[in-house]
């Protein structure tokens, strides 16, 4: 047997281990603080290579984004790679933790503040072309400490979706479309039949949040600095839902064996539901024979209100090509490109100047864009996801009769306050 000297072996082993460790940990030592430094990195004169990570709804969206970015790349002499993420939240987080995030990516309002606070987003609000044209509520969703961070790529609000056949069969006309909560309760009662409830919606905090808004309350105050769950307005709103559920005219979708509001309406288990514009594609694909229409949410005691849903094009603070990325995003949120996207896979444009075009081209989606200026976006406080998930559990209990509306709101108040006090 050949004699192997001891020291070189040990050194070789250590080296191999160290190399492997270093390879795995690459990027862990990147410490450049691009956040807070407003000067964009890189130039716009071509030669940049950008990665764009999207949480795609499907093939249509992926292809549309690929086409749009490829066109921009050709015009400007840059390169763009589009990565449709399987799990955007997790893949983005991995990139951020490793100091190697994609240059451009989708950001949802409920995760926006976490990323902005963590210094992961490059604030380019002042470089968005014609930013004032974008709906105020959508810009608010991506504003942190009075600074607009990213450009909303689309928008939409909750609307009341109605099964028109059931509506006509119940002897109701278009004039009867509910304008307020009394009208909604009456219509739901008229539409409730054997094996069908009048109104069913996903039993989570989003549609219930829209009711709270119409009732003049919400989970948090305008600045999202205080929890305002346990108020008389919210109690009245929850009580309204609860009373109608007890009467058998309202239901949460899971309780009538439907995964979400769209399935409840599509399968005929309910005659009305509350959803956003995403229901349009789902109904077309899964329940093409269902005849439906969408009307704005009925006004509550606090006036007409709804929740706004949107995503923005975030640019990484660690990106080396921020200037090019801003240029790309500006081309993606331009009115022409938003029209192309709307035709390709159905998002509602985020620009107010396109409201008329949207209502004309897609009359079935008009209600999902109405009242966008006064709508409110989801709670953005980091960590609120678990608090609202607990509220979902309380709502389940309310539907089952084991939790009173008071208790549900008190639990939300306690948990939310505990979270905000940690901030």
């Amino acid at each position: 047997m050949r004699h192997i000297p001891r020291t070189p072996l040990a050194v070789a082993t250590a080296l191999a281990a160290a190399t492997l460790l270093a390879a795995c940990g690459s990027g862990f030592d990147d410490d450049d603080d691009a956040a807070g430094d407003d000067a964009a990195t890189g130039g716009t004169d071509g030669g940049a290579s950008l990665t764009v990570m999207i949480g795609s709804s499907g093939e249509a969206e992926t292809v549309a984004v690929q086409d749009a970015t490829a066109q921009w790349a050709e015009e400007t002499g840059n390169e763009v790679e589009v990565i449709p993420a399987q799990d955007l939240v997790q893949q983005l987080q991995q990139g951020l933790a490793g100091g190697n995030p994609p240059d451009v990516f989708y950001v949802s309002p409920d995760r926006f503040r976490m990323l902005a606070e963590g210094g992961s987003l490059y604030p380019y609000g002042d470089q968005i072309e014609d930013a004032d044209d974008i709906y105020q509520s959508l810009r608010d969703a991506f504003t942190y400490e009075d600074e607009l961070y990213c450009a909303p790529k689309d928008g939409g609000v909750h609307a009341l979706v109605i099964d028109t056949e059931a509506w006509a069969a119940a002897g109701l006309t278009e004039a009867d479309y509910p304008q307020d909560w009394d009208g909604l309760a009456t219509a739901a009662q008229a539409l409730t039949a054997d094996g069908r409830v009048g109104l069913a919606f996903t039993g989570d905090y989003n549609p219930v949040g829209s009711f709270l808004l119409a009732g003049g309350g919400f989970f948090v105050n305008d600045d999202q600095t205080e929890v305002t769950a346990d108020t008389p307005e919210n109690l009245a709103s929850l009580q309204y839902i609860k009373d109608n559920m007890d009467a058998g005219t309202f239901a949460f979708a899971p309780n009538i064996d439907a995964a979400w509001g769209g399935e409840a309406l599509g399968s005929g288990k309910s005659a009305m539901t509350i959803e956003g514009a995403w229901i349009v594609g789902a109904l077309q694909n899964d329940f093409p024979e269902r005849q439906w229409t969408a009307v704005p949410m009925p006004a509550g005691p606090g006036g007409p209100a709804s929740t706004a849903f949107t995503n923005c094009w975030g640019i990484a603070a660690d990106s080396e090509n921020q200037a090019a990325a801003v240029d790309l995003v500006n081309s993606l949120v331009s009115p022409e490109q938003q029209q192309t996207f709307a035709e390709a896979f159905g998002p509602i444009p985020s620009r107010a100047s396109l409201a008329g075009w949207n209502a004309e081209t897609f009359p079935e989606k008009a209600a999902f864009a109405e009242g966008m200026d006064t709508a409110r976006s989801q709670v953005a406080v980091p960590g609120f996801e678990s608090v609202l998930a607990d509220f979902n559990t309380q709502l389940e209990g309310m539907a089952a009769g084991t939790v009173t509306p008071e208790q549900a709101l008190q639990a939300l108040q306690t948990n939310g306050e505990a979270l905000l006090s940690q901030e």
Partner: protein
Amino acid sequence: MTATVTREASAGRIRPVRRRVTSGHLRQERRAGWLFVAPAVIVLVVFLFAPILMAAWVSLLDWNGQSSPFSGDADFVGLSNYQSLLTEAGLLRNDFMLSVRNTIYYVLFNVTGVVVVSFALAMAVNSYVLRGRSFFRTIFYFPAITSSVAISVLFLFLFQGSGVVNVVLSWVGVDGPSWFTDPRGVLHIVLGWFGVSDAPGALADTTVGGLSLWNWLSGPSVAMCALITLTIWASSGTFMLFFLVGLQDIPVELEEATAIDGAGGWQRFRHLTLPLMRRSIVLVITLALISSWQVFDQVFILSQGSPAKTTLTPAYVSYVRSFGDGQFGVGAAVAFVLFAIIIVLTLVQRWVGRERRT
């Protein structure tokens, strides 16, 4: 195993006599040994021990997952993540205790079920009476090679309110629950049949970890039962193989001898097969125990913790806290507490299942 023991013993015997002569040779051998195990050791260190140490460090930080945890950007908070998890009343501790309760029932029923089912399957495909044994062995192993995602989606359809399971139940006049949305605990349901629908005072007032004893004693929820069924079905094929190997190691002579001595089928099983299968049973219980505590993918796909958090598990809490709320320190702390629970239970189980010489 035996070979190593003999070698060590003989080396020990001659070492005092021939130490000087062999020491150089021995050292060389040891070195060569290290060289040969080096790849495995390096892989273990890099992909197992180093990440564990990193996670341990993260569990002591208030880290949002957006920078390097080793750059000093994240605040060092000591044991406060563990405190809010285990001692401070609040949403986090409540969620965690619920997840521990759910998993205790999950482990209890899943491990029992999987041992019984896979043992029965192994006995069946090992018996000489059965025709086409290799065919059945393959069939029973099928679920193990199917992706757990596909199985979960399949079960979602089977256990729908109007799904196959309930249709079959309705043939025998049973009105099945809507499985994955039913949060009622099974023990509570059974107690309800005997008129105990509310918590007796003592059980409602005594709390452990912020959860009343009445809640601890709920039993698995209806939704959790569907989940347990899924896991038993999916994993019994693998464990059947473990048992099959054990059964085939039992010498035929012994069985014949017992038969000649006049032992019946049950007696043979109780006094011959079971004692000889002790090792296999302990092994299967250990493996099933560990994998049950780590259950994640079925929960992630099927229920996300609902209904009423009765399918929440520690691994899922860790995931949601980390990626949902951006509290990676808390998520890592949950993982370490889970790690400790598994270690302790495995040690206890090994101690209980140890071989006693009489």
